[in-house]
């Protein structure tokens, strides 16, 4: 009945949803999205129904309740009256501790083994190959359990240190005790301590920062800054005259002198571990579960890193070394100026994904009773409160954020060192 007509335009036909490249992709995506949302809705509704039937609605209130269990290895202060949240936090720190320690040692061992595997020394190369193959081809869980067993069985118990003629003695001028419960090393005590700062009051996230430590760190940072200045000066000198002045003794001086002064001022002395009662007291204690986990994870990951390092070095063609030699560069310089910068580009990305694996594998800590986040949040807390859904989801979230931050670093690095090509 209207006389108005639309301006002529390509009118839309339903079949275009399928055949027209512009609409087709939208169609597919909408279908995929609907499918995904249906699936998600289905799962969520199932979960809600099931939880209702079990009488366990999702809520996180239990995190505030007292955990009621003790944790032996911890960085921050904690007791059984603290909340589950704090226990989880302590566990998270433990995860990070073993992950960081593991990554460092795995890298050191891995690089060493990788280089030695390329050694011209037949025997050394073979021994390293055996090491790498042994560790790579047996599950890491087994290595963790074995490491723990070896520590327990082969090291002396504290009671072996007792008596007039003890079977075992402390090492390093009676300062370090190595027992099958762990290693006790001296720690630093300050007789004129500056005290602590308390952060976050009494909440679950509270922690104390020792002002002594802060002072030490500040002085250290200052020294390092000064050292860099000195080496910058040396580099400038080299630029202008070609000769690099010897500066290592100046640097050593800058590094140590202020530190010594500060430590004396704070009245720093060592607190030695001592056998009293059932156990060693004093000093810093590293439990055997931590050591076993650390050892097993680093040896296992090092086997993979060794392969990466080897491949990385081999990927730098022999021509690069030859060219550098032909220019008169000594092997050490060649390594530092030519081979390493190139090898690192090849090595670092897979290396970081191995760090990621190591971090994830640290969740096997429960096998030796090391209280990491899986042991606390995903272990005892979950067990005692019966809140599986909340605990497991939170646990996954924690690991996911660790992983994503590590891979974020990886991507950033990759983009930074990409070789410029035509």
């Amino acid at each position, binding site marked *: 009945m209207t006389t108005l007509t639309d301006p002529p335009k390509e009118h839309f036909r339903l079949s275009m949803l399928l055949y027209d490249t512009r609409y087709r992709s939208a169609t597919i995506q909408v279908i995929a999205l609907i499918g995904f949302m249906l699936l998600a809705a289905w799962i969520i509704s199932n979960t809600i129904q099931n939880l209702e039937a079990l009488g366990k609605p999702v809520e996180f209130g239990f995190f505030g309740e007292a955990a009621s269990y003790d944790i032996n290895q911890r960085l921050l202060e904690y007791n059984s009256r603290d909340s589950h949240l704090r226990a989880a936090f302590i566990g998270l720190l433990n995860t990070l501790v073993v992950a960081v320690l593991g990554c460092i040692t795995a890298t050191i061992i891995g690089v060493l083994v990788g280089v030695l595997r390329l050694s011209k020394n037949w025997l050394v190369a073979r021994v390293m190959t055996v090491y790498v193959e042994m560790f790579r081809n047996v599950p890491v869980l087994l290595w963790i359990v074995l490491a723990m067993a070896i520590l327990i069985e082969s090291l002396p118990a504290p009671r072996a240190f007792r008596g007039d003629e003890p079977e075992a003695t402390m090492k390093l001028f009676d300062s370090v005790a190595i027992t099958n419960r762990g290693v006790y090393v001296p720690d630093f005590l300050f007789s004129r301590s500056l005290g602590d700062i308390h952060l976050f009051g009494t909440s679950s996230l509270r922690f104390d920062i020792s002002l002594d430590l802060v002072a030490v760190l500040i002085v250290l940072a200052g020294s390092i800054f000064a050292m860099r200045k000195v080496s910058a000066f040396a580099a400038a000198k080299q630029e202008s005259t070609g000769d690099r002045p010897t500066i290592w003794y100046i640097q050593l001086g800058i590094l140590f002198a202020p530190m010594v002064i500060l430590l004396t001022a704070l009245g720093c002395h060592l607190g030695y571990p001592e056998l009293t009662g059932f156990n060693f007291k004093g000093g810093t204690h590293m439990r055997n579960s931590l050591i076993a986990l650390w050892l097993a994870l680093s040896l296992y990951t090092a086997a993979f890193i060794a392969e990466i390092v080897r491949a990385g070095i081999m990927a730098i063609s022999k021509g690069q070394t030859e060219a550098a030699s032909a220019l008169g560069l000594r092997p050490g310089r060649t390594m530092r100026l030519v081979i390493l910068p190139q090898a690192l580009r090849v090595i670092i990305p897979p290396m970081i994904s191995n760090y990621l694996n190591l971090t994830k594998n640290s969740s096997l800590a429960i096998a030796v009773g090391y209280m990491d986040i899986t042991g606390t949040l995903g272990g005892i807390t979950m067990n005692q409160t019966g809140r599986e859904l909340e605990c497991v989801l939170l646990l996954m979230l924690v690991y996911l954020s660790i992983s994503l931050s590590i891979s974020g670093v990886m991507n950033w690095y990759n983009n930074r060192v990409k070789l410029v*090509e035509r």
Partner: protein
Amino acid sequence: MQVSDEVAIEINGMNKWYGAFHVLRDINLTVNQGERIVIAGPSGSGKSTLIRCLNALEEHQQGTIMVDGTELSNDLKNIDKIRSEVGMVFQHFNLFPHLTILENCTLAPIWVRKTPRKEAEETAMHFLEKVKIPEQALKYPGQLSGGQQQRVAIARSLCMRPRIMLFDEPTSALDPEMIKEVLDTMIELAEEGMTMLCVTHEMGFARQVANRVIFMDAGQIVEQNEPEEFFNNPQSERTKLFLSQILGH
């Protein structure tokens, strides 16, 4: 192009084995200052090995090699000395891909010769101009064509101000258009009187610049002669065969 009487390289009764394989057999060769020598021969005849021995990239097991009056022994000091006197250009350029062209050229002067960076960069630019690519100084090797890369490799060697240059098939990995630009650079160098040993199959180049052509086969020097004589009047059967293959192509 004058050849002086001063001896640059002297090889006496040199032998080399790879395991049980006898690669170089009783090599005797004297090269004078300013001489330009082309080494030819079939693949696997030991040309590269010979050249690499002169630079201590390979060890020889018997005989003596004197480079510029220094004996090539296991003594690290001698090796360092010789390497800084002798430049080498490889078939596959072997530029350092993580450094710019300029850094490639200044690396060794700065770290080996202890030249101040500024001076090293000036030298580098000088030689880059000589090989006609000063404008590429801040690019990375991956951004250059093969011919440009090989010219950078030559400049890089020159920056160490060597008295002798070794070339190991410098053009065989290049596309035909690029061969010429590299050969031109080498010819220019030859005209300045640089002592050169060059493994190559570019016979035009050999005719144009060489004082002497050495033909190797099965690890030994089979024939040597002036280029004209060598090409027009080869003596040994093997040389004839080789030349017919190379030139017939």
